């Protein structure tokens, strides 16, 4: 809209004393965020005798245990980001432009908030009670439909089972992110498209989806990072049998299972790099969305 902005308030000239106001925050961040992270980074370049080495980084790509850990982590993150992304988007769609009664949206949003926070130990137990060997659904399927999940090969305590559990906090997160994005779809765009002769499908394919794509991709990248960094759920469910990166790091913290502390640090740094790339991707796509929808 063409409006004159309020006069820009030029910030008062600052000297170092003004920066004192944010000093406590910076100090806290340095002490408990940057220092530990830095320590991990420098330690990842240390050999067991203390000298500088690039060996640890190299071994990230050669040691089978570690390569496998990254492969598993990337797989489960990608799968649940995609699956959770699609289901979450559809859910957000249904309560925003989908035409459901307005009262359903706050209910969905509250539940999504709860579910995306419900990860960790309680979630693992909940799924055990649902589709574990003695779980509710397992029984229902056996007794009423004659379908024996576990004989058919399904196992909750496997990669597939863990993915299912991860989905529980992934798709609500997607719904929470996409609902405001879908709100940003102006009603007039749809009307203008209809007015110009487009069908509903044509509107979605040519206008709505292209406009939403940066948000959707950005959110999925966020979901990827979300799953990659998860630990408690996996540990509570499988006890460390599925060797994703976080589990391996956890094992390394407890006791030097790799017989080379530097390697553990390198794994941690590798993970931080992946998370950082994921965050950068999300931020870039966010900026793109905002620019378009100004």
């Amino acid at each position, binding site marked *: 809209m063409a409006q004159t902005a309020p006069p820009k308030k030029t910030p008062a000239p600052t000297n170092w004393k003004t920066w004192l106001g944010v000093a406590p925050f910076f100090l806290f961040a340095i002490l408990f965020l940057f220092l530990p992270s830095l320590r991990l980074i420098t330690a990842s370049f240390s050999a067991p005798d203390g000298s500088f080495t690039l060996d640890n980084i190299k071994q990230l790509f050669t040691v089978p245990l570690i390569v496998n850990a990254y492969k598993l982590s990337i797989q489960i993150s990608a799968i649940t980001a995609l699956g959770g992304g699609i289901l979450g988007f559809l859910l957000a769609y249904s309560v925003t432009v989908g035409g459901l009664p307005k009262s359903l949206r706050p209910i969905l949003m509250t539940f999504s908030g709860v579910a995306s926070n419900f990860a960790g130990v309680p979630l693992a137990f909940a799924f055990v009670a649902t589709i574990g060997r003695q779980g509710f659904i397992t029984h229902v399927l056996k007794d009423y439909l004659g379908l024996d999940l576990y004989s058919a090969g399904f196992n909750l305590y496997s990669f597939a089972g863990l993915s299912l559990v991860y989905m529980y906090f992934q798709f609500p997160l997607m719904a929470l992110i996409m609902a405001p994005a879908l709100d940003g779809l102006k009603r*007039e765009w749809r009307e203008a498209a209809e007015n110009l*002769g487009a069908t509903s499908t044509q509107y979605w394919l040519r206008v709505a989806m292209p406009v939403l794509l940066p948000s959707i991709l950005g959110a999925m990248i966020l979901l990827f990072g979300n799953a990659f960094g998860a630990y408690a759920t996996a540990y509570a469910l499988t006890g460390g049998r599925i060797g994703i990166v976080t589990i391996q790091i956890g094992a390394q913290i407890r006791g030097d299972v790799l017989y080379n502390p530097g390697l553990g640090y390198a794994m941690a740094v590798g993970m931080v790099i992946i998370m950082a790339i994921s965050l950068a991707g999300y931020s870039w796509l966010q900026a793109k969305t905002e620019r378009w*929808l100004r």
Partner: protein
Amino acid sequence: MSYLSLQNLTKQFGDTVVVDNFNLEIEKGEFVSFLGPSGCGKTTTLRMVAGFETPTSGKILLDGADITDKAPNQRNVGMIFQSYALFPNMTVAQNIGFGLNVRKLQKEVIKQRVDEMISLIHLEAHANKYPYQLSGGQQQRVSLARALAIRPQVLLLDEPLSALDAKIRVSLRSEIRSIQKSLGITAIFVTHDQEEALSISDRIVVMNAGEMEQVGTPFEIYNFPKTRFVANFVGSLNTADAEIIDPANGIISVGGVQFVSAEGAKGKNKGDKVKIAIRPERFSFAAQQHKDNVLEAIIENITFLGSVVRIQIKIGNSSFNMDTFNNPFLELPKIGSKQQVTCSKEAVLVLE
């Protein structure tokens, strides 16, 4: 047979009647404005023509065909929105070509039509820009081109200028009008700004609370308002309570002072209490010229408005505003002094 016929259109939401029995016949190539305050139903009526609202009852006929039940994407009417509604993921050229694309016309045909439209709105240099790179006025012009590209039978404009700066509003409205005239396209223009409606319409429909107050040319609406609402809404107006003295000769008493009205007293009885209305610019100083009514006035206040000078005068015990053109060489009377003012008997209106 008129080109666009709106017959007994009514729209009801629950218990609220938003548009009540709207009837209008519009000729091909005519530019009609719906003028009224917020909530009067003008936008709802427009949206019924576009197909975004379904009438509770009534019919819409376009060039003889009944389009009342047709879906919005099948009506071949072009709509311009207040918020421009340009597709943010497409360039100017792609936006304009959208309707043609959807109709699956050939690439060459589309390109030619798009180029034609872009030069119509003089935005050749911006053809590959995205909406966020354009100003409000430019975006609205693209929106116009986009709607015209599909060669619609009717152009519907929903307060297209309300979001723009004052200067752009003035230039863009004449641009819209000249494009409409040169293409000969029928148009309905919704606005709450009377100056817009008066300056560019062939006819104006003044609406209030879902009902049509008056339909007429801008000249008619302004000079011969039929209802109190129209008189108040369009142009500024002086009103005062009065009593009919002599219906046959049109003599009306306003607080003891006698006015002569041309048509106003017709059909009324002696002693009827009415409200009279006189436009401020119909008053002038009697020193320059004598008209039918010559009245004694006391100057109460003088406000300089630029090209117009507004003088508040007291006639009898009623206050009136009198507008005269600013003339730097004419000395204005002093506040508190007595002057003689005059106005013709046609200027004295009696409101329903």
